[in-house]
């Protein structure tokens, strides 16, 4: 994580700050939403960043953050408000070689003397308003960047010893997916064995079993949803084919000598549609429709013995289109 600015040669290089690590134990509140406020306790560094400019030559600066492979962290930044509170403006998860470049917008405030000169002629009420406004501007000029390590916090959340997840890349990815994609409650996953003598591997296995159980539930739900959607698509297509067939039955039967039955004519229609289908998707769908098992269609999958030959069915299609 660094902040870079263009030097005199136009190359980007890290900025210099006057930094100090605060020795006080930080307890910082970060409101995520109206219902949830998280508490942060960790190292705090105070930076004084001095920039100089001649005339109106404003430099551009970027906040650059990157993660290594199989490592991850959450980057939160915002402004400090009130007593030990960070108002988060933006946040992003960085993992597996992600790198994000965030341009910084700098807005210079008037100097204290300029401000005093500017409000000198205002009424007392207006001066009070201007001073309050400037005070709020100064309050919001404290920029906070927070780096939260995901793996270490996951270990604490799951009740695992420190560094237990260091080599568990797959488990870490699955945990993050469960939390981010599916918003799985964190109660479902922690280590919960009563045996205190378990070693680290057994504890990790315990968590893995919980994760696998949740993944199984999600997998089953996915499969069921896919089946329902496929069934819905089949039924919709079935009714569409039925409708199309009924509307063109007279024409097809006239060409075939009026001797085809319902399923035979239907088969002819599908074959014709397949041969004339413009897109591959339509062809695939039609092919599936023709290959559907008997139990799904609720009728015989194969044309009856007295149905016309496939070659003749294919010949029937041009007759329809010509008409």
């Amino acid at each position: 994580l660094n902040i870079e600015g263009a030097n005199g040669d136009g190359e980007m290089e890290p900025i210099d700050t006057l930094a100090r690590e605060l020795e006080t134990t930080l307890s910082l509140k970060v409101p995520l939403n109206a219902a949830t406020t998280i508490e942060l306790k960790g190292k705090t560094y105070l930076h004084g960043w001095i920039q100089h400019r001649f005339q109106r030559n404003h430099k551009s600066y970027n906040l650059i953050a990157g993660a290594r492979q199989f490592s991850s962290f959450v980057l939160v930044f915002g402004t400090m408000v009130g007593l030990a509170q960070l108002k988060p403006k933006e946040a992003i998860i960085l993992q597996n070689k992600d790198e994000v470049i965030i341009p910084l917008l700098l807005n210079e405030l008037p100097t204290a003397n300029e401000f005093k000169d500017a409000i000198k002629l205002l009424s007392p009420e207006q001066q009070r308003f201007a001073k309050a406004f400037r005070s709020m501007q100064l309050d919001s000029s404290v920029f906070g960047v927070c780096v939260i390590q995901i793996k270490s916090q996951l270990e604490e959340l799951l009740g695992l010893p420190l560094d237990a997840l260091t080599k568990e890349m797959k488990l870490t990815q699955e945990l993050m997916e469960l939390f981010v994609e599916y918003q799985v409650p964190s109660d479902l996953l922690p280590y919960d064995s009563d045996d205190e003598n378990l070693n680290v591997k057994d504890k990790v296995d315990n968590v893995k079993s919980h994760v696998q159980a949740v993944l199984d539930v999600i997998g089953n739900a996915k499969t069921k949803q896919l089946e329902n959607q496929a069934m819905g698509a089949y039924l919709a297509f079935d009714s569409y084919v039925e409708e199309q067939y009924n509307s063109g039955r007279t024409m097809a039967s006239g060409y075939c000598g009026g001797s085809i039955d319902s399923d035979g004519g239907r088969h002819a229609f599908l074959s014709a549609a397949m041969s004339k289908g413009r897109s591959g998707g339509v062809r695939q769908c039609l092919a599936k429709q023709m290959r559907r098992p008997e139990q799904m269609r609720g009728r015989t999958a194969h044309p009856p013995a007295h149905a016309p030959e496939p070659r003749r069915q294919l010949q029937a299609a041009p007759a329809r289109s010509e008409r």
Partner: protein
Amino acid sequence: MLSAASETNDLFSMTAASPQLQAYDMAHQANKLPSSKAEPPSPGVQESVGGTVTNEGVVDFTMMPKIIDSVIEKHDADNALRSTLIKTSDSWTRKRQENLLTKIQSSTLGASDIKSEKDHAFDLLDALSHSGSLPISYLELHVIIFVTHCFEKDVMGTVIQDNINPIGKLEMTALLIASTIHGVPANLLVCNGGELSRLSASFPALLEAFETDDRVESVET
């Protein structure tokens, strides 16, 4: 982390392990020494190193800009130092490698993408903190206070027409901000005696107000 080169030049030695600073911190916390800040602290709040700390041990960083503003008003006769707001742009660039076998691809994140990323991050933080009941301990917080020293003309114009030494002015700015960030008088930040005397001649109002020897003696006693 933030490329925090604490030493802007050879003048300053601003490490926390400096014996003088440690001695000053001890005396400062014991209220043996008067505060170097321009604004008096409010009741229930005592000024401390690098900010203001309440009796409950909570750091109030929002006091820092006001302290810096008052220090600038007091010492910056040229009216050149401006507090600066930092905001982030609405368009970010992200480089991502989908998997180990693919190349890194760059993409631009717009406002909607940034919002989506924020929601994902907050969902994860919500889970990691057990909806706020579990404090998050593995983190680093960097608080940044940004000040711009503005010269109205270009370098030659500043030196020749305005007869201003920009390097000297920036030295003063660095001393002012370092003094506020570290919560110690500016003279304690300069180790070299020769440099201290030179700077005292250049910025008497900033440095002569404190006498180093008296400070050290009072701390030792």
